């Protein structure tokens, strides 16, 4: 019970603004972050549990890492276009600070069998619009947040002196919160009135999956790694609550309150299919002190199709079921990282990532506006005495313009512009 509680406490830190394609968070270790996540073929610190379990085979001593990534969105703006909400309309998201944590323990059992336990925060998302009561997209979303973290016990086996495999189990804990306003045509004004704020809260639910990794350290100047983390479905139970908003007309309010289940708990069920992902990395020892790694990372976002929200409260405590259509696509990201060992005590890192958005144009909405992005990274590692890593990433989202709408939602056209800074700090014991 105690552990469960602390796990929950950790996970509440884990929401973040959008920062890796879709709502995945690939920053699960500060050494890797310094190299833009190009780490699959290195996997030589405890964050290997996330990046490539194959690296576990080569662990020779007990090692513990604790860290977090401070994610700060520096800009998340929206400019409207016609026909709705129209040119000249603009809105902003709250600039948020979030701290998705990571925690790893690796432990040799025999010379060839190794054990590891990781806690990772592979997915997370918060979009929160300023002035939600005036925001023109408030009937689509005012605030959405999703938190997911994995408990990841892993076994590693050193097959040959330079080839290792790792296999792990993934237990995903996740919660979701969605907020929007409910519109109604006021028959007196024939314009739109807000009649309620709908909040949907799905508390922690669990889903299961696995991960596998291979790492082949051919020689001093070349290694390759392959890592796979499976698709995981999380089925959520939760409650929705529709809080009445006055239209300014008392009798109309009374009438609506007779027809809608205001201010009561409305049980809901929903489900999210998290994507599987695979990474292939190649690492080259250019000189004794200089290492270059290039990775390609695939994410099976086509799993993210429809999010069905089913109200299960029977005739009285329910609203009509809704479907949030997503229809995302599988995407690749490309990563390159450089690690320069300046001295036995210090390393300097550089990295670059190009990350494609899995989101089709008609799916871009205030609920979750995603975009292609370029990430530029710099990092430092202190490798003697008190060992720690720092990684800094500047993430620039391409402008994302949508001029296509899903018929069920209608146009909410415009351009989203987002920037974020990520600072990872990991201490190793």
């Amino acid at each position, binding site marked *: 019970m105690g552990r469960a509680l602390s796990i929950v406490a950790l996970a509440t830190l884990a929401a973040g603004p959008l920062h890796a394609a879709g709502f995945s968070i690939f920053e699960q270790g500060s050494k890797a972050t310094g190299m833009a996540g190009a780490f699959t073929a290195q996997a030589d610190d405890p964050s290997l549990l996330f990046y490539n379990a194959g690296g576990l085979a080569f662990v020779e001593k007990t090692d513990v890492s604790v860290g977090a990534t401070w994610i700060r969105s520096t800009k998340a703006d929206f400019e*409207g276009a*016609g*026909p*709705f*909400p*129209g*040119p*000249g*309309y*603009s809105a902003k998201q709250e600039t948020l600070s979030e701290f998705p944590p990571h925690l790893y323990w690796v432990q040799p059992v025999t010379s060839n069998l190794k054990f590891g336990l990781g806690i990772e925060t592979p997915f997370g998302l918060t979009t929160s619009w300023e*002035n939600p009561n*005036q925001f*023109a*997209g408030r*009937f*689509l979303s005012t605030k959405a947040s999703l938190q997911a973290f994995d408990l990841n016990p892993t076994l590693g086996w050193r097959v040959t002196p330079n080839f290792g495999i790792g296999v792990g189990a993934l237990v995903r804990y996740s919660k979701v919160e969605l907020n*929007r306003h409910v*519109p*109604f*045509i*006021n*028959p*007196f*004004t*024939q*314009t*739109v009135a807000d009649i309620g704020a709908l909040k949907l809260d799905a508390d922690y639910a669990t889903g299961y999956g696995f991960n596998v990794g291979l790492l082949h350290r051919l020689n001093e100047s070349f290694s390759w790694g392959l890592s796979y983390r499976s698709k995981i479905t999380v089925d959520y139970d939760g409650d929705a609550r529709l809080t009445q908003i006055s239209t*300014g*007309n*008392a*009798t*109309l309010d009374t*009438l609506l309150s007779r*027809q809608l289940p205001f201010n009561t708990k409305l049980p809901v069920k929903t489900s999210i299919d998290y994507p599987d992902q695979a990474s292939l990395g190649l690492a080259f020892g250019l000189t004794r002190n200089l290492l270059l790694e290039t990775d390609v990372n695939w994410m099976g976002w086509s799993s993210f199709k429809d999010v069905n929200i089913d109200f299960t409260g029977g005739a009285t405590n329910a609203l009509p079921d809704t479907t949030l259509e997503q229809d995302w696509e599988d995407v690749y990201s490309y990563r390159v990282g450089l690690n320069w060992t300046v001295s036995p005590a210090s390393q300097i890192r550089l990295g670059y990532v190009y990350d494609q958005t899995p989101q089709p144009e008609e799916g871009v909405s205030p609920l979750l506006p995603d975009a292609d992005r370029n990430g530029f990274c710099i990092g430092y590692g202190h490798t003697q005495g008190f060992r720690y890593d720092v990684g800094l990433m500047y993430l620039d989202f391409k402008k994302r313009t949508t001029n296509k*709408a899903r*018929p*069920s*939602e*209608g*146009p*909410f056209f415009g351009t989203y512009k987002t920037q974020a800074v990520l600072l990872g700090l990991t201490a190793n014991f």
Partner: protein
Amino acid sequence: MQRLKILTGALSLALLLAGSAFAVDTGSANFTTYVALGDSLTAGYSSSALAHTYQVNSYPALIYRQATGKTTGFEQPLISNPGISGLAVCNGANPPAPCGILRLAALGVSPTIVPTPGRGTPENLTLPRPYNNMAIPGQTVHQLLTQTTGGFSDVILRQTGFTQLQQGLSLKPTFVTLWIGNNDALGAAVSGIAVEGVTLTPVESFKADYTTIVGAITTAGARMAMATIPDVTSIPYVNTISRFIVNPQTGQVVRDPSGNPIPFIGPNGPLQSGDFVLLGATTEISQGRGIPTALGGSGLPLSDSSVLSAAEAAKIRDYVNSYNAIITKAASDSGSALVDINALFKGIATNGLHVGGISYSSAFLTGGLFSYDGVHPTAFGYAYIANTFIDAINDTYGGDIPPVDLYPFVFGPLPKSLAKAASGDEYLSFLFSPDARLSLLKSLGVSQAVIDGKVPHKPRPRGRH
């Protein structure tokens, strides 16, 4: 507030960037002189009246603004608020109040829709040239070609002896939108009487007149967009009231002992599947007509003009389909843009219409698309129609005219006089006042004889043999 600031900022920036800041790419369509021809729908008629607030946002005025970036130069026969309804008595110099646009006076058990007190006056009567928006409420295809006096034409044609078409073409338009023919069929639906030659224009004569109009415009050298006519059963005036009797206290359908819903009594007995009770029937229903004595009604049937039978609806639909085939062919023959309003309305009736997560529908009062007369669009509805025109014009002429910004039409504000608070009920026990009904019929060109019931009660057989 934030929006206003940005608009002001954008405006001053635009001014800095010099004169031709709003150059719009209209493709091969030229909006230097734009003339709109049509009927009440083109005039911006809403809630059973022609009124300034709605006229300034008529779909032709919106198209002009989007295509030229200008707010002046498109002249309309504006009538000050609260407008003038189609009532005959409102045409006189000293009409009895009220003659303004319809408003929702109250919801509650007996929601009522009544004309606004007062009467508007023409604001632009002395313009020394024809208006750009020449549309005349009530006109049929034939009247667009021939009418010179009577009804709304007196304040639009201004007793010059020239027709809508002649005055429009005298401006030497470079672009013309034509949406005419609604009154060749709609009057039949709204009056519940479908008789060829009385409320329905014969197809051959429609074809001859329509072709003449398009020919004249083409000869004058203007490019065109022309719109189809909506299916009569897609409007709230026709499809709002259930054919089954509803208890206004509970909102529930009244059932017989074996659980079957009880239909209203129509002129030919109990209403059958496919029959429509028109919005104008509410006065009769409130008097107990159409309701059996056992249920507290008078036992008298609803009058013919309160019911659109399945057979009448099918007949009107046949005519509308024929008219639309003529319009579609005329558009393709002349290389004009075709604006398929019929498809738009059908789509709305089936799937609704969605904007930014807001759902609009063809529901009366709460659907947001149709005004209080159940036939003519709201300001939002007209803005959406303007965008449908703009899409078709861009498609045909290769332009990039920006769509109308729907934001102010979604959120308002509309004039305060419309927003008068009252009590409410969603259920369909409206009292659509006799004045409201009369005004609407007039605006749709329904003749006094039909309104007075001086036509055969039952449609004549089609006369195939």
